């Protein structure tokens, strides 16, 4: 009797579960068949009336039915949930080609990038970075660099003077003199000095009354011109490409003796001649030389014990050459359309 009832309940429940079309219906079925007041519980309660032989048989059947129904409900539930999730995901579909919310970043200035690149190279070679004042004493800007007051290479008209003895520095070389003084006659001195310099020029495509310079100085026992050549070769390859060659031409600067001008083989044409190198295959990059003994002496170094080399370059020129920039004023106009192009420089 009870057995038949259980089997019937089983059929009813399974049919009910399989036809449930939502989680709510399924939950109702669960309460109806497995709830505390449900028919299976009723059957269990009435089992006491059964014989001792029948009781375990019916009991076992009741448990099995119960388990089966519960399992089917779980299965059906998972099924329904999966379908719901699928619907939800379908609904949440978006146009992934729409632009994202970007976080706008700014750009470093091209000159800052060039200077940093040079600094990092030379730090790696054991040079530290020295900076100095932009308003400089005449002594450090000229005299300590072997340019006495009446030196013909010195033209008052080229400088922005503040008083007779003070001016806007015309090069970063005075940092050399300051640095040597600080070392009180004891080497080695290995520094790179980047900074702003000022000349009494009218601003045009190739002139700027303010521009940047990077000066390098290495003073020690037995520093040789061949060392300068070696260091400059490393620099040229680092900045302009591994297959660059350099050449040194004699030149003149009052603070170096001998003085040289460094050319690199043209990075555009590889030396065959083009408009970048004006057909020569070589591009003038910087001036350099062996520190003049007068400069060493005036800054407290004994030229019979110490030698050194110095070089000076213009980051604007490097940038203009590297990127084909046609007007030096771009660096100081700060047009965002200019600056942004060098975000990765």
């Amino acid at each position, binding site marked *: 009797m009870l057995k038949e009832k259980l089997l019937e309940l089983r059929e009813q429940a399974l049919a009910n579960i399989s036809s449930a079309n939502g989680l709510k219906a399924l939950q109702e079925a669960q309460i109806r068949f497995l709830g505390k007041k449900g028919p299976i519980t009723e059957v269990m309660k009435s089992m006491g009336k059964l014989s001792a032989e029948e009781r375990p048989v019916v009991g076992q059947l009741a448990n099995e039915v119960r388990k089966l129904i519960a399992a089917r409900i779980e299965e059906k539930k998972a099924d329904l949930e999966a379908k719901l999730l699928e619907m939800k995901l379908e609904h949440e579909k978006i146009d992934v080609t729409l*632009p994202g919310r970007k976080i706008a970043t*700014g*750009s470093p200035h091209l000159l800052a990038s060039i200077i940093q690149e040079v600094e990092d190279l030379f730090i790696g070679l054991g040079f530290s970075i020295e900076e100095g004042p932009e308003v400089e004493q005449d002594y450090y800007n000229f005299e300590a660099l072997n340019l006495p007051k009446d030196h013909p290479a010195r033209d008052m008209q080229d400088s922005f003077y503040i008083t007779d003895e003070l001016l806007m520095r015309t090069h970063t070389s005075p940092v050399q003199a300051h640095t040597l003084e600080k070392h009180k006659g004891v*080497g080695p001195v290995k520094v790179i000095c980047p900074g702003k310099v000022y000349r009494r020029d009218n601003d045009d495509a190739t002139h700027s009354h*303010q521009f940047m310079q990077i000066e390098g100085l290495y003073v020690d026992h037995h520093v*040789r011109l061949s060392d300068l050549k070696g*260091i400059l070769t490393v620099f040229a390859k680092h900045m302009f490409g591994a297959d660059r060659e350099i050449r*040194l031409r004699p030149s003149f600067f009052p603070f170096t003796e001998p003085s040289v001008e460094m050319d690199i083989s043209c990075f555009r044409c590889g030396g065959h001649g083009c408009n970048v190198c004006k057909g020569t295959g070589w591009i003038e990059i910087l001036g350099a030389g062996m520190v003049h003994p007068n400069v060493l002496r005036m800054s407290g170094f004994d030229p019979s014990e110490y030698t050194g080399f110095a070089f000076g370059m213009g980051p604007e020129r490097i940038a203009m050459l590297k990127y084909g920039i046609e007007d030096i004023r771009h*660096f*100081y106009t700060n047009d965002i359309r200019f600056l942004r192009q060098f975000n990765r420089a």
Partner: protein
Amino acid sequence: MLVSYKWLQDYVDLSGITPEELADKITNSGIEVEHIVYPGEGLKGIVVGKVESCEQHPEAEKLHLCQVDLGAESVQIVCGAPNVAAGQKVPVATVGARIANNVKIKRAKLRGEISNGMICSLDELGFDHNYVPKEYADGIYVFDDEVPVGADALPYLNLDDAILDLDILVNSAHCMNMIGVAYEVGAILDRPIKLKKPEVIESDQPASEKISISVDAGDKVSYYGARVLNSIKVAPSPRWMQLRLINAGVRPISNVVDVSNYVMLEYGQPLHTFDFDQFGSDHVLVRFAGDHEEITTLDGQLRKLTDEDLLITNGKKGVAVAGVMGGENTEVSRATENVLLEAAIFDPISIRKTAARLQLRSDASSRYEKGLDRNRVALAADRAAELLVRYAHATVLKGIVEVGERTVDEHQITMPWQKINQVLGADFTCEQIVGILRRLNFIVDVEDETMHVSVPARRFDVTIPEDLVEEVGRIYGYNHIPATLPEGTSSHASLTPYQKIRRRVEGLMNSMGLTQAYTYSLTSKENASFYVVNNQGVEPTQVVWPMSEEHAALRQSIVPQLINVAQYHLNRQMPDIKFYEIGKVFLPVKGEARPAEEEHLAGIITGKRTERNWEGESDAVDFFSVKGIVESLLDSLAVGDQIVYAPSKREGMHPGQTADILFKGEVIGYLGTLHPKVEKDYGLSETFVFELAIESLLHHGEADIKYHGLPRFPSTTRDIALVVKRTVAAADLDRVIRENGTPLLKSVRLFDVYEGSHVAPDEKSMAFSLVYFDPERTLTDEEVTIVHEKIVRACAEQLGAELRG
């Protein structure tokens, strides 16, 4: 310096070396050849013709019918030059020839008469009219007799020459003359040079009977010599000399003037000639000019002198500004018969000052300024006398009348010859070094390790051992010197703490969307006075001689420059901008000419926070955007919690939207909104700026990082909403809360500000989130409540705050 390839061959054998090769070699040895000019470039078919007959053109008054012998044939040529005449030898452009500016000569009919070519003026052959001698300026050129008829005319006009333009720097002044260039080229090519000693035919009468000299000018005149030349016939100088002068960029005038110019070009020694009959005395006195003394120079200008100028006088009045320009009163003219020839050595600095002040830079003064061969002065006087005998029929009186020494000793340099290898990093033998120095015509003696070098006076730029290092290096060629890496102690290097943190600041600014600007330090006086962080209203440091008003003073703040950058972008339809700059500002120091230099960081933002996109327009930036940038920056640099913001009033800033930035009680910057008046003046929309004295704030670099273990116990968060008068600042509440929070209070964050209908009209509500924490244990509710209530009480007592119900 214009160097004629043809002329140079007088002194050095240039066979096998083209002008281009020579130019390359000179450049690679230290004197840049800027370019080579070929004066006859493009000319073709120009021959020497002889005018056999010259008749009036029947139809045209100003034209002549010439029959011209061209060697191979005789042709009729119509010529319009006023100076054409029978018997002349002239340059003729034959039919089919090319003359200057690539003009082709064709057979032509002029007023009915056939013309088979053209007789040429120098202009038509490409000569610069400025250098054409006066006698040929308005007509054809006429050769002297020695030129063969029918020959190619170009060599006889030096139009087959190549002119090398040498860029002479301070150290290469020894090449400001042909003999100097010859020595240089001889050394470069390792070829001997040929020089002839001038031979002067003198009369028996001593010059000293006619003239005496005294010098009263301290050490500024080391030599003054004079020759007297009589019975001169002033006339044009010979063709070869005229053409050499023209190719050197000097206009031929007359034999007397041309000879002194020629000798200056050849020897480098400036000479001056006086018309002796106009000299006005038999005595030369060289002295300083009196203050305000005046002289009319050759160019007709009245010159006011000072007591620093050297003046040549006849004992009473000035006859020449020494080394710069002669006086009009003694100028050589067509009528001159007797000449006083001056050859002197003047102090370079003195000449430089005078020439600069009178704005009279001449070929002579620039040679005095850069330096002369001290031992060539009397030779130059002899050379001029020699040429004037030959080309001006001069009678030269015996001897040079002089004050001072004609020559000085050669300069001696003693050094270990190995020093050259040590400095260059080369591996020369002693013989190689000596060989190179001897190519330069230096005299060298070697004693074991020591080298004695005697340097001729013409190389006055070579004075110390290092100069000899350079001579050897440049003549040998730096390209042959190896590239090495320094052998010295390897050293470690790194950025200084400030340099490191400055790079971090740049990176943070970029990541917050600000682009780096570089603006000028020199600005207008007005701009240089605005937006100063401290000590506003101080006059900026100014340059004494500015190029323009815009760059006359040193900036005390970066903000005005950034305002210009913003305006630039606004004017170009780029209204959304964010810029920053790190750079020096120059702050005047009381009682000192030199300003203090401080590196500042400044920023400017205006426009939308982000670009408009498909989600719509973003909000505009505002005060809290700029403040957020500054706060984020300072937090990242771990100083944010030591910074206080205080309302402030600053010129050019919005009076209600500006805050000073204080660090340890000192104002180190400010931020806020530009004053609407400024925005209007510059055509800006709402614009926000900041400036920070970043160097003084961060010069120590970043503080060390102190690590704390992760919390093992939970923290407790309690929110608190306080109603206060509107005048109470958020910072006041924040401060009182923190002061009373005991060590248990770990953080305070304002999360809501409310003004409106739920509070009184003069009140506002501010809600804070407070976090309590003890690293050693879990806090009980009671413990937190005690602290929390203390805070509420303090806020009530100190700021009248009430808990919002």
